[in-house]
Structure formats: structure tokens, C-alpha cells
């Protein structure tokens, strides 16, 4: 006998032990929700904290601008813009790299370092080696990932093609920088550490190469606290306009930061939706089990009250039980969740380049998760606990009145005579308690929906890959020139060894404006009859080039609030920087980015230029690939080289590394959800009917026959839950896809029949496993014991 434990508490412990499997099943669902919540909250928090600390420590700028060429003396004027704290001019360009042992040409962003001292803004985090020495024009620091991908070490040399002039640069340092947390080549959608990197060199070296003595082509600013970036941007643009400025932008449009912020936003979304589903189901399960428990303990409740226990004491007794279940779930969820949070942050560390990762989750996330789960389970048990507390003792000690059944109109038909008694029992029960049957059905349907949600990601990603890399693109390689060239360049490029087909486009920086919404968005000028990289709509495939107007992606159209036929403004941010009013002639849908297309002639007319091109899509004869690559390495002023296959491979690898792991987690979580719901449904059905089933056994029914009565009911509910679950899964996936879509990416709602089938089979398997467990209990049913007691 344990001393110090009140008898009521001892009853509590024994009840918990008796119901242990059900308790564990509910605790698992709570734990899944808590783990998901903690994972999302702590990893989001850690990512935010890491990013902010990184930005702070390495003086990440707040306003960014590029120009063609501006004199250094302009910096005085820029520094005097009110609200500007510090300003840093730089030379930033694209260079083609030839790395020993790598057949393809790589490109890199080359960024100048001040000839003396540390940069005022966008400092670099040296990971190895040192900064280039003053006056040394042949020393460089390379990005960490690029160095690692190529196995480059300090002292190694790479050949850098700077503005057509080849220079051997020796690597003296390896570094990271806050502006390159996410390193992505222009025109590509995923980081590719082999083909795109960053190289920092002394400003003098780049000034010589790019003809920028006493001049700059890139300026970044930090602002005093509370300054609105837009007012500074406006003034900066005015200053830079005549020097070929292509429009300043704030941190929120800086490409690397945009991806990071996008990731943080997604973590926040994750913290909301999925845990909410798990918590709702946990509340539902608690309700189910507590209602059942207080119903079976009616006479005991009456007895306690007869002894003088107060209503509050009775209520507290059952609340404690709920709290124990919640505590189990919370404890398990804390462990799994913080492990997952750390794992998630490591994953961020692999995709995003940070010199350090800060994971020190505050008590906040844990407190939120704990409070949410306690609140949901308490809400779930409230009706049952209240009913128990309110039960008058005399009534409690009388057995509840037997349930009243009625013969439905169906029972009077001929059909009813063909149904055997066990089936009739199943149908009558379902008809007698349609609401509890509907809830059980809904519970199973929800677990199917969550499982479907987890599995459909795979389909969605396959669809993105199919659409982006196969249906919309047919070239082998795309190359971009730093400066647009007359159309005849297309002939030169076609003449490169191995080129079988070539198409040219013009891509220019622009700002798209409508009403008071504006977006920086490159505009692509294309020609009719393009087959390698046509304008592509997700549904219709290639669509015609609009002769006069503009074809705009539906996402951008939504952002700007424009429809077909509407007029809007395009501010071209290059050349003569014209502004034109244009009409939407076509709206098309894409999964990535928000492209805008015009006919090359229309674009050239707006720009008041000849037909110039700077983006080329090529098909290359695979047998002549080495010669083609060698020729590319000698081509000056290439700003980007993107291989479709390599891009796809990168995409696949990255996705597989990240998302597939999480699909695995979510699958496990949804299975625990399905198990929790189905096992509890079956166990409660068994508890409620053990007396009836034992009677039938005594009357001569076999185990199989009584199993049919019990499991048949669950079978019917499961079968009914399948279509409902699939519909819920589609709605849920659609909702999540919508929540996850950004201007960068849209996740399509794509569920293959086979995926729905697999999810359904998963749920059926779970039902099967639970049925086997329950069937074993059914076989051990104590016939005599059950019959002696009155209900």
C-alpha cells in the first residue's frame, strides 16, 4: 500500500493503467501536435535570430542599388540623403571562371573589397585564410560553398575572365557574407555551388578590369533607425538616374534575404495549420474517452458523492486524468520537437549559408505548445467532466435508462428481412447514435486527409519539375550576356561548336506599376515561333507571343490587381529608362517566379533601341559538348550559364534532401493520428458493447461472428470515411498550398489517383492493425464476469 496517496488518486492511477493503450494513443496525437508546433516555432525563431545576429554583426545594408558607372564623388551626395547612416560604393559584376578539373564554365559574382580597411557595409565573414593584401591585384577570397564544391584550398589558383581579360587569381581566403546567405545565379531557381559562386577581390583590381577608376557601379546604404527606406530610395534613384541606375530597392527585395524571409514565413505558417489539426483531433479523442469513462463510472461517482465528495472534487479528479494524458503528450512532444527543431535548423544551415547557427529556444515556444495542448484537452473533456460533476448522487447510482431504439421505416420493408440480426444490430446502432458515428467517421477521415496532405507533396514537386524543366523548357543550356548585343550575335552563338538550334531574347530590369502597387520584375522580349523557351502556361502549354501588349503571370497580375485588357505602367530601368503604358493581352500561370513577356519588337520600340538580345537558349549536340564548353569558357561577358539538366538535378537533390525527409516525418505523425483515432474508436466500441457481445457468445455465437458485429461497424465507418477523407485531404492540401505560395513559388494542387490510393491503403492498414489488437481482446472476453454485472 502506498502511503500518502489518497484513494481517489490511487483510483486515478489504476484507471490510467487500465486505459494505458488509449492514453498512449491520445498522448501520441498530442505529442505529434506539440512536436510540430515546437519544431516550427523554435526553428523559425532560431532562423530569425541567426539571421538578425548575422545581419547585425556583419553590417548588412538596408538599401541596394546598381548603376552602369557613377563617379566616386557622387558618394558625398548620397551620404547626405537624410536618413542615411552609412554608404558603401563597390564594383560588382559577373565573371566567368575556369576551375581546374571542371569542364563547364562556372560564373561568379565578383565583389570589390575596399583597398584599405574593412567594408563599411556587407562585411565578409572569413572562414579560412585572410583578406587580400593591399595592392595585390591577383588575390581573391571565394565563397565557402563554391570552394568546398570544387575542393579549392588556400593557395589554389582559379582563372577569372574579367570583362574579357583573363586573370589568374590565387585564393587567399574563404568566406561567407550576409548578402549571400542564399546564393543563386541570375535566371536560376536553386543554388548550384558548382556552377555559381562569389569572389571578393581588391577594388583596384576590379577597377582596372571594368574601367571603374574613381567610379562605382553598386552602392549600398544603411539607414538611421526609423527611416522609411522608400523615401531614401526615391532620392537615391534621382541621384543615380543619369548614371544608368536600374532602381534601388530595400532589404525586402534583396534576393538572398527574400529567400530567407520566405523560409521564416513558411515556418510561421507551419506553426499554425498542422499543429491545429492535431490539437483538434486530440480534443476530440479526449472528449470521446472521457465521456465513456464518466459514463461507466456513474455509480462510482454517485458513491463518492454519497460519501461527501464535492462536485468540484469529482471534477478535479477527472481533470487530473486529462492533465496526466496532456502531460505525457507534452513531455514526449518537447523531446521530439526540440530534436526536430534542431534538425530543421541544421537543414536551414545546409541550404542557407550562415557562419554560425543560433539555436537557443526560449521558454516561450515550449510554454505556448504546453498551454495550447492543455487548453485543447481540457476543452475536449469539458462536457464529460461537467456532466460527471453535475450528476445527482441518487441518479448516479441508478443505472442509466436503457437506450430507446425505434424501428426505422426501412425496417418495415422487404429488404429488412434479408438482413441478418448482427447486421441489423450494426445498422441500428449507427442509426441510434448518428452524431457519435459521424464524429468517429470524421476522425478517421481527418487522419486520411493529413496522410494525403503529407503524401501529395511528392506529386506536387513532380508536377513542378515536369512543368518547369520539361514542358516549359526544351533547351539544353541558356546563356546570358552582360550587355545586350545586336541580333547578329545569335548567328555567332549558333556557330559555336555543337549548337544545333538557338533562340535569342532580351531581358531587361523593369518596374511594373499599377495604382499604388509596384514590383521590380525583369521583362523578357521574345519572338514568335520560339520553341525552345516559349511563353508557357501551366494548363495550356506554349502560348502565342502577344503582338502589341504584354503577357503577364497570373500571380503578378493578382499582386498588381490587373486583369486582361487593363493598362499598367512599365518603367524600364536600363538604357534610356523609358516609361510606357501597356495593356495586358494575356495572363498565364507559372509555378515559379512571376515572369512578364513582350514581343521583342514592342520592347525594342519602348526602349527606343534596335533589336538587341542578351539571353540565348541553345540545343547542343551531346557528342560535341566538350568543344562547346571549351568555347564557352573563352566567351567574354557571359553573365550566366544555366544547364537545364544540371538545374533539374540540383532541384531534385535539394528537394529530396529537404522535403522528402519531412514527408517522412509527417507520414509518421499522420499514422500516429490515424492510430489514435481508430484505436480509441474501436476500444470504446468494445467497452460499450462487451456485455452485449458476451451475451451473444453465450448464446452460441462464435468469435468471428461477434467480431463481425464490432468490427463491421468500424468497417462501415472506415469505408464511409474514405471518400470524405480524400475530399478533406484535397481541401486541406489546397489550403496549405495557398498558404505556402509566394511570389517566388507556387505549390500546385496535384494529387495523383495512386497517391490517394496509397493514403487510403495506409488508413485501411491502420484500421486493420487496430482491429487485430481489439480482436485479441475480444477473444479474451470474460463471459462470466461480464454477464454477472448489470450495466
Amino acid at each position, binding site marked *: 500500500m502506498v502511503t500518502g496517496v489518497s484513494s481517489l488518486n490511487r483510483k486515478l492511477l489504476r484507471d490510467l493503467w487500465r486505459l494505458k493503450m488509449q492514453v498512449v494513443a491520445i498522448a501520441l496525437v498530442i505529442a505529434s501536435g506539440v512536436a510540430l508546433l515546437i519544431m516550427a516555432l523554435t526553428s523559425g525563431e532560431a532562423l530569425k535570430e541567426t539571421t538578425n545576429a548575422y545581419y547585425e554583426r556583419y553590417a548588412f545594408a538596408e538599401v541596394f542599388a546598381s548603376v552602369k558607372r557613377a563617379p566616386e564623388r557622387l558618394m558625398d551626395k548620397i551620404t547626405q540623403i537624410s536618413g542615411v547612416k552609412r554608404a558603401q560604393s563597390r564594383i560588382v559584376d559577373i565573371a566567368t571562371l575556369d576551375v581546374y578539373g571542371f569542364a563547364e564554365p562556372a560564373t561568379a559574382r565578383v565583389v570589390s573589397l575596399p583597398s584599405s580597411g574593412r567594408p563599411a557595409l556587407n562585411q565578409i565573414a572569413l572562414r579560412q585564410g585572410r583578406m587580400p593584401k593591399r595592392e595585390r591585384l591577383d588575390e581573391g577570397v571565394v565563397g565557402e560553398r563554391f570552394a568546398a564544391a570544387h575542393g579549392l584550398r588556400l593557395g589554389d589558383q582559379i582563372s577569372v575572365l574579367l570583362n574579357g581579360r583573363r586573370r589568374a587569381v590565387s585564393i587567399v581566403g574563404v568566406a561567407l557574407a550576409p548578402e549571400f546567405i542564399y546564393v543563386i545565379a541570375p535566371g536560376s531557381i536553386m543554388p548550384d555551388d558548382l556552377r555559381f559562386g562569389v569572389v571578393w577581390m581588391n577594388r583596384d583590381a576590379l577597377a582596372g578590369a571594368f574601367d571603374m577608376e574613381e567610379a562605382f557601379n553598386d552602392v549600398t546604404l544603411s539607414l538611421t533607425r526609423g527611416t522609411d527606406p522608400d523615401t531614401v530610395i526615391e532620392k537615391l534613384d534621382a541621384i543615380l538616374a543619369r548614371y544608368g541606375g536600374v532602381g534601388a530597392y530595400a532589404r525586402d527585395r534583396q534576393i538572398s534575404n527574400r529567400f530567407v524571409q520566405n523560409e521564416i514565413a513558411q515556418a510561421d505558417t507551419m506553426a499554425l495549420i498542422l499543429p491545429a489539426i492535431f490539437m483538434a483531433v486530440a480534443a476530440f479523442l479526449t472528449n470521446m474517452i472521457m465521456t465513456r469513462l464518466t459514463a461507466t463510472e456513474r455509480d462510482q461517482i454517485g458513491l463518492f458523492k454519497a460519501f461527501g465528495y464535492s462536485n468540484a472534487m469529482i471534477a478535479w479528479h477527472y481533470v487530473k486524468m486529462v492533465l496526466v494524458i496532456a502531460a505525457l503528450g507534452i513531455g514526449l512532444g518537447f523531446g521530439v520537437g526540440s530534436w526536430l527543431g534542431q534538425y530543421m535548423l541544421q537543414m536551414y544551415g545546409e541550404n542557407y549559408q550562415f557562419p554560425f547557427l543560433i539555436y537557443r529556444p526560449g521558454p516561450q515556444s515550449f510554454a505556448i505548445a504546453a498551454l495550447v495542448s492543455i487548453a485543447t484537452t481540457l476543452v475536449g473533456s469539458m462536457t464529460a467532466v461537467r456532466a460527471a460533476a453535475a450528476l445527482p448522487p441518487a441518479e448516479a447510482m441508478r443505472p442509466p435508462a*436503457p*437506450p430507446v431504439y425505434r424501428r426505422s421505416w426501412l425496417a418495415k420493408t422487404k429488404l429488412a428481412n434479408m438482413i441478418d*440480426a448482427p447486421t441489423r444490430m450494426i445498422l*441500428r*446502432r449507427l442509426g441510434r447514435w448518428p452524431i457519435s458515428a459521424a464524429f468517429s467517421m470524421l476522425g478517421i477521415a481527418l487522419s486520411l486527409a493529413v496522410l494525403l496532405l503529407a503524401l501529395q507533396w511528392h506529386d506536387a514537386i513532380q508536377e513542378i519539375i515536369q512543368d518547369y524543366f520539361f514542358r516549359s523548357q526544351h533547351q539544353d543550356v541558356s546563356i546570358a550576356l552582360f550587355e545586350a548585343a545586336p541580333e547578329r550575335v545569335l548567328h555567332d552563338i549558333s556557330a559555336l561548336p555543337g549548337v544545333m538550334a538557338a533562340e535569342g531574347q532580351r531581358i531587361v530590369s523593369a518596374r511594373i506599376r499599377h495604382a499604388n502597387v509596384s514590383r521590380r520584375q525583369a521583362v523578357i522580349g521574345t519572338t514568335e515561333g520560339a520553341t525552345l523557351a516559349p511563353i508557357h502556361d501551366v494548363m495550356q502549354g506554349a502560348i502565342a507571343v502577344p503582338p502589341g501588349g504584354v503577357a503577364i503571370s497570373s500571380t503578378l497580375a493578382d499582386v498588381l490587381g490587373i486583369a486582361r485588357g487593363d493598362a499598367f505602367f512599365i518603367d524600364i530601368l536600363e538604357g534610356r529608362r523609358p516609361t510606357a503604358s501597356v495593356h495586358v493581352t494575356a495572363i498565364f500561370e507559372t509555378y515559379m517566379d512571376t515572369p512578364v513577356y513582350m514581343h521583342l519588337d514592342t520592347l525594342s520600340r519602348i526602349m527606343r533601341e534596335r533589336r538587341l538580345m542578351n539571353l540565348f537558349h541553345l540545343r547542343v549536340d551531346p557528342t560535341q559538348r566538350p568543344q562547346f564548353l571549351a568555347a564557352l569558357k573563352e566567351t567574354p561577358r557571359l553573365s550566366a550559364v544555366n544547364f537545364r539538366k544540371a538545374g533539374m538535378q540540383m532541384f531534385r537533390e535539394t528537394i529530396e534532401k529537404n522535403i522528402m525527409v519531412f514527408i517522412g516525418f509527417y507520414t509518421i505523425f499522420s499514422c500516429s493520428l490515424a492510430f489514435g483515432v481508430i484505436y480509441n474508436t474501436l476500444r470504446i466500441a468494445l467497452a460499450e458493447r462487451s456485455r452485449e457481445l458476451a*451475451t451473444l457468445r453465450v448464446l*452460441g455465437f462464435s468469435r468471428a461472428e461477434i467480431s463481425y458485429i464490432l468490427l463491421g461497424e468500424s468497417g462501415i465507418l472506415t469505408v464511409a470515411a474514405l471518400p470524405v477523407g480524400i475530399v478533406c485531404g484535397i481541401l486541406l492540401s489546397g489550403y496549405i498550398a495557398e498558404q505556402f505560395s509566394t511570389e517566388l513559388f507556387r505549390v500546385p494542387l496535384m494529387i495523383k489517383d495512386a497517391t490517394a490510393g496509397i493514403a487510403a491503403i495506409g488508413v485501411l492498414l491502420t484500421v486493420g492493425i487496430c482491429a487485430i489488437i481489439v480482436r485479441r481482446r475480444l477473444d479474451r472476453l470474460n463471459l*462470466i464476469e461480464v454477464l454477472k454485472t448489470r450495466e
Partner: protein
Amino acid sequence: MLVLLGPSGSGKSTLLNILGGLDVPTSGTVRFRDADIIGTSESNMTRYRRDHVGFVFQFYNLIPSLTARENVALVTEIAGDPFSPEEALGLVGLGARLDHFPAQLSGGEQQRVAIARAIAKRPDILLCDEPTGALDSETGLLVLEALERVNRELGTTTAVITHNAVIADMADRVFRFADGRIERTIVNDDKCAAREMSW
């Protein structure tokens, strides 16, 4: 008609459960028509119960979701040569309440449905554990009358457990139990009809 009398804990129910194939003795054998029913497989026990034994319980144990007729049909559907549910309910005097659910019947009526359900398969043995235990004397007598009629008209061997010594008057033989043993067997040559008894 046998009556098993004795204080609680004296082993009446255990014997009944063993005879009915619900429980297994720690030692000894139980034979039914020259065949062992103990130690055989679970499905043999099920078949034995299904084909030969009828049970009546103190708390009726009707299926609340089935009507009187359907509760009886539950057994007739799996039996070899049963009465129709209507006949069986007629035998216990419930021919007029065929389509009532248990919740719509009185305790005595529910117990008579249970008897009808037990005899509908024409069992060789009818085992009744305190069939009147939960009923007042008047309804209890109605139930006993039904048992008596079944015993007389169908010749079913009927064993009734009771605390109520008065009921022993209607038995052919009475077993008195004490401490897990049959203490005394009384052959009742002068049994009286159920309606002549009162308590």
C-alpha cells in the same frame, strides 16, 4: 426440473457455468451424450452452446438494439431446428409484444423474452441463473410459469439457480449447496405448480 439452492459463494453458478460450457473446471470431466466437452477446442465449446444449451440470466441480457422478435431470431438464425420467434414468444405469453424493443418492456417481460430466446432453439438443457432475482414476486411467478410450461411441454432439462427456497417446491429434484459441494439432494415427489407458490 432441477433447482440449485444455496448461499452465495457455495458454487451454484460455477457449476452452471461449467455445465453450460462457459467455464472450465480445474479438475474432473464433463460429458454430454458420451462426449467430453471440457478440454476440447473453443469452437467445439461454441458449437455445444449453440446446439444444446439455453441460458437465462438474472439481468436478462437482451440486445437493446433488437426488438423482442429479433432478439429471439438472433438464436433461431443460427440454430438447426428452431421454433419460429413468434412461436417461442407465444410460449412465454408475449405473442402480442413482438415488435417492442427491450426499453419498451417491463422487467418480467424482458426476462420472458430472454426465456423465449433460450428455448427457441429447442435446447437439450436450459440453464437459468437467478431468473427471478431482479423481479418482484408477481412478475417472478409469471417467469416461473413460463419456465414450467417449457419444461412440461418441451421436456427440456431445466436447471434453475435461486436463493429463494420457495421455488424449490416446483422442482423434481433439489440440490442444496454449501462450501462448493452438493450437500444434499432432495427428490421432490410432490411438486407444486408455479401459480400455487407465493413469497
